């Protein structure tokens, strides 16, 4: 009973949706609206910053940025890496195998400067077996060249001393004389692949030969006085040699004049 009445009631209620008596309602309404000022569109803060607006703003900012990044227009900022700050290292210099093979022979070469100590036995310092072997290997002429006594051999490191070792294929050879308590140590380093030899490197140390010799005479480091004394001694010897030469020449002239006068 109720359901039938309800369906019937709904049907009857729908029939109420008829046009109301028109009259002059709309005319009065439009006339009244014409007197009203233009409505002002008020945008409240809640409208401007509601979630949808925030999403639209973010999308408008991020989507073009992402698109530009996608085509490689710009890259997101990143802290400068160490590679960008520090210049790239030069490719490592490949050390020839010969250097690796020759390098152990540098130790005897360095020790050979101390050979006069062993040979002369002035300081009585015991020679270690490698040092002794190195001294024996260079031979007597080299031993004499390395010793302090022969003044006629100005070359401090003769070719014979390095004869055991093949010439190094070093680049720029830098000889470093380290005046420590143990005596001078000659080290060779290769910085660039140039062709050179240890012999040329040894020649580079020739101005320091008196210092080396002076240092080689003992275990103490060479002092300036020792070097100056050696140089003065060398100059004295030069003068004596020149004087001997002059005397010899004068003697020959005198003998010649004596022979000529006798004819």
């Amino acid at each position, binding site marked *: 009973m*109720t359901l039938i*009445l*309800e369906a019937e*009631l*709904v049907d*009857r*209620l*729908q*029939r*109420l*949706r008829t*046009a*109301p*008596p028109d*009259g002059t*309602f*709309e005319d*009065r*309404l439009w006339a*009244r*609206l014409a007197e*009203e000022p233009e*409505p*002002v*569109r*008020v945008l*409240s803060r809640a*409208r401007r910053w509601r979630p949808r607006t925030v999403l639209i703003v973010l999308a408008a900012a991020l989507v073009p940025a992402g698109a530009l990044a996608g085509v490689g227009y710009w890259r997101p900022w990143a802290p400068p890496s160490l590679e960008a700050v520090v210049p790239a290292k030069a490719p490592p210099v490949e050390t020839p195998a010969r250097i690796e093979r020759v390098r152990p022979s540098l130790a005897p070469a360095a020790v050979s400067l101390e050979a006069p100590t062993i040979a002369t036995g002035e300081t009585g310092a015991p020679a270690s077996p490698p040092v002794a072997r190195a001294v024996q290997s260079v031979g007597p002429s080299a031993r004499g060249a390395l010793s302090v006594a022969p003044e006629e051999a100005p070359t401090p490191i003769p070719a014979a001393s390095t004869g055991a070792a093949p010439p190094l294929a070093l680049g720029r050879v830098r000889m470093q004389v380290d005046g420590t308590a143990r005596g001078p140590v000659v080290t060779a380093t290769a910085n660039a692949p140039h062709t050179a030899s240890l012999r040329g490197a040894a020649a580079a140390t020739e101005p320091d030969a008196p210092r080396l010799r002076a240092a080689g005479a003992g275990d103490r480091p060479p002092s300036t006085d020792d070097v100056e004394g050696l140089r003065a001694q060398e100059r004295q010897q030069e003068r004596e040699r020149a004087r001997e030469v002059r005397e010899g020449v004068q003697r020959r002239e005198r003998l010649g004049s004596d022979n000529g006068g006798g004819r």
Partner: protein
Amino acid sequence: MRPHIDSVRRFAFSFCGSWSDADDLAQEVLLKAYRSIGAFEGRSSLSTWLYTLARSVFIDSRRGRQGRSREREQDLDDQLVAEDGDSQEQLLVQKDEVERLWRAVRALDHEFRIPVVLCDIEGMSYEQVASIEGVPIGTIRSRLSRARGKLAELLRRASSGESGTHAVETSSNSTGRPAA
């Protein structure tokens, strides 16, 4: 806004006793909507926003207009009775039927009246009415079901010997619930 004018007028008529009062109320609602159209944010449809505004205006003005509407109703009844003739008699029957329905609708409390007017008369959806009322859809369904039952009871009592107007008026005076 023009397509909603007739609906607003009918909605206003459910709160008034005469079409002239309903027109005044509808005009007030439409003017208010025109002035505050800038506040319409588009989160809902324009009809929902408009009926929400009309609802608040109607409920606020209901008390002041209630007594005057009864007088207007009496005037309408007198006008209908004064006309004469066969066609007029048929028209009277139809108008009496319409008026009885409207009176029965107006006899309901506004919480039951609004779902009946908007859903059954204007054909709005439950969701839209729930948005206008600010209540869940289930509440609208419940209110609508109860409102239909009350309407059926009011119409049954009005057609059973008693004068429809008197029956509706009696029930309207007793908190909108049908008299036992």
